[in-house]
């Protein structure tokens, strides 16, 4: 604190010399305060006729008192747009409320320039409440309007950007959905005498999954090929790998009727596409099935994929060991292991990805695991593909956030004999 400023200790004000100096600094009259105030003042009759105006406002507008007082209305001082706003908004509100503050209007100077102002008006009433006149203060808002305009511009830009971002996100979502659909069959084909079911659980709607499956005829509806697998990683790169994998396996199945050979073709294609520093692989089970009489013969080959499970029509469930099969696409001399299985009426073959076995359950977040899956399926046996897949879908749902990976299920089975008979009668 500078002591020369005085007053802070309470004693300075008492000195006569200081008081005199202070007094000289004060306005010498209310009239001068009115005329030279740093804002515009004007008073109008209730019809808007200007009755009094201060020098500050006259100076801003470049008008003389004689031109204004008794001759002009308040709205005559405004731009035409301001006049419209005044008549449609300002005047009605002021009439209704008796007071109105901080309204942005534009005035027009004698030179034709626009003067942005902030206007506050109060209606003075007589003792019995009759409105007498309107008192108005006018603040120069040139700077303020400039940054308000900037704020508005910024808001508009932000709103446009947000709208654009939302549109982009929507387009992306659509593109992802289309892409995801291209990785899976729209529907499984109908195979006479065979029941099939499938399910795909997507862990995240915005992240493309890396699981895939397919089932399709290879010749004359007698033999069908199928596969189910899981590519490493997530997102667009995983999706590209899935796409390459799916269409390679489909093409391979049309050429070679040996599932091991199909996996070798896929291995070659992926190795060719993805080089040493950026290896990418998938694990897959590939199968070929052919009907013979009342049974279906299945020839399966696995490349590093969890073993397929057979749920027997006479109870029980068992894994089909394909131990030793290696993941596909990362190793030049990868070995694949095959297995044959015959499905009898009531038997169901289940292919799945490790989303289910790797799910976390219980308070300790234990791995769900292979034993639990086998026991769950055995508990359902005998169960047709639809019932099995529905039950597993319920199981997956029950995992809640313990399931954080995509999961694919494909089940193929022969209806139990009684079902076949009733179907034949129908």
């Amino acid at each position, binding site marked *: 604190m500078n002591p020369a400023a005085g007053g802070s200790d309470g004693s300075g004000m008492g000195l006569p010399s200081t008081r005199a100096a202070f007094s000289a600094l004060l306005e010498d009259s209310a009239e001068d305060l009115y005329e030279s105030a740093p804002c515009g003042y004007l008073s109008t009759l209730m019809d808007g006729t200007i009755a009094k105006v201060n020098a500050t406002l006259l100076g801003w507008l470049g008008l003389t008192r004689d031109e204004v007082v008794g001759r002009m209305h308040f709205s005559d001082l405004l731009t035409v747009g301001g006049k419209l706003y005044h008549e449609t908004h300002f005047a009605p509100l002021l009439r209704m409320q008796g007071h109105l503050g901080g309204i942005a209007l534009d005035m027009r100077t004698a030179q034709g320039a626009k003067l942005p102002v902030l206007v506050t008006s109060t209606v003075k009433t007589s003792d019995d409440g009759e409105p007498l006149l309107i008192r108005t203060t006018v603040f120069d808002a040139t700077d303020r309007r400039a940054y308000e305009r900037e704020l508005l511009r910024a808001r508009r830009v932000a709103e446009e950007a947000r709208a654009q971002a939302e549109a982009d996100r929507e387009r992306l979502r659509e593109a992802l959905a289309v892409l995801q659909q291209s990785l899976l069959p729209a529907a499984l084909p109908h195979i006479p005498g065979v029941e099939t079911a499938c399910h795909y659980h997507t862990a995240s709607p915005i992240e493309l999954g890396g699981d895939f499956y397919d089932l399709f005829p290879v010749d004359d509806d007698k033999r069908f090929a199928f596969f189910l697998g899981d590519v*490493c990683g997530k997102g667009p790169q995983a999706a590209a790998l899935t796409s390459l994998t799916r269409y390679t396996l489909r093409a391979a199945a049309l050429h070679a009727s040996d599932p091991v050979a199909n996996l070798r073709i896929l291995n070659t294609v992926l190795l060719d596409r993805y080089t040493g520093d950026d290896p990418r692989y998938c694990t897959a089970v590939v199968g070929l099935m052919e009907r013979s009489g009342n049974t279906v013969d299945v020839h399966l080959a696995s490349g590093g994929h969890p073993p397929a499970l057979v749920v027997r029509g006479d109870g029980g469930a068992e894994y089909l060991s394909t131990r030793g099969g290696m*993941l596909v696409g990362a190793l030049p001399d990868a070995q694949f292991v095959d297995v044959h299985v015959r499905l009898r009426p009531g038997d169901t073959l289940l292919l799945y990805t490790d989303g289910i076995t790797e799910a976390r359950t219980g308070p300790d977040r234990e791995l769900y695991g292979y034993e639990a899956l086998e026991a769950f399926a055995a508990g359902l046996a005998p169960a047709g593909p639809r019932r099995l897949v529905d039950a597993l879908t319920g199981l997956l749902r029950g995992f809640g956030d313990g399931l954080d990976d995509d999961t694919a299920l494909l089940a193929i089975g022969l209806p139990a004999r009684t079902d076949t008979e009733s179907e034949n009668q129908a």
Partner: protein
Amino acid sequence: MNPLTITASHAPGGLVLEAVGDLDHTNAQRLRHAAQEAELPPGGLLVVDLSRLEFCDSSGITALIAVRNRAEAAGGALVLVVVSAALRRLLNLTGLDQVLDVRDAVPLLTDH
């Protein structure tokens, strides 16, 4: 979710990289880089010690394959040290236990 820490220690006959924590798609790249930056002597042994690894996903497996490709391209060899049953099962399931040298303890590295 456990953070991944990778520690490198050099020995005359090669290099030991110890990975502790979770190895997944968020950090698998770091294991690759660690293996790339390490100067493996010709014919040397790269030991990736996973005995204190708690989790490994498919991206982790990819990184292990990349590290192995790199070591072999440099004329060296990769040894994996695996203790956890889960990781052993994963290596077994993917058939990688047939192509990778998987051991249950860090071998003694000597100049040869």
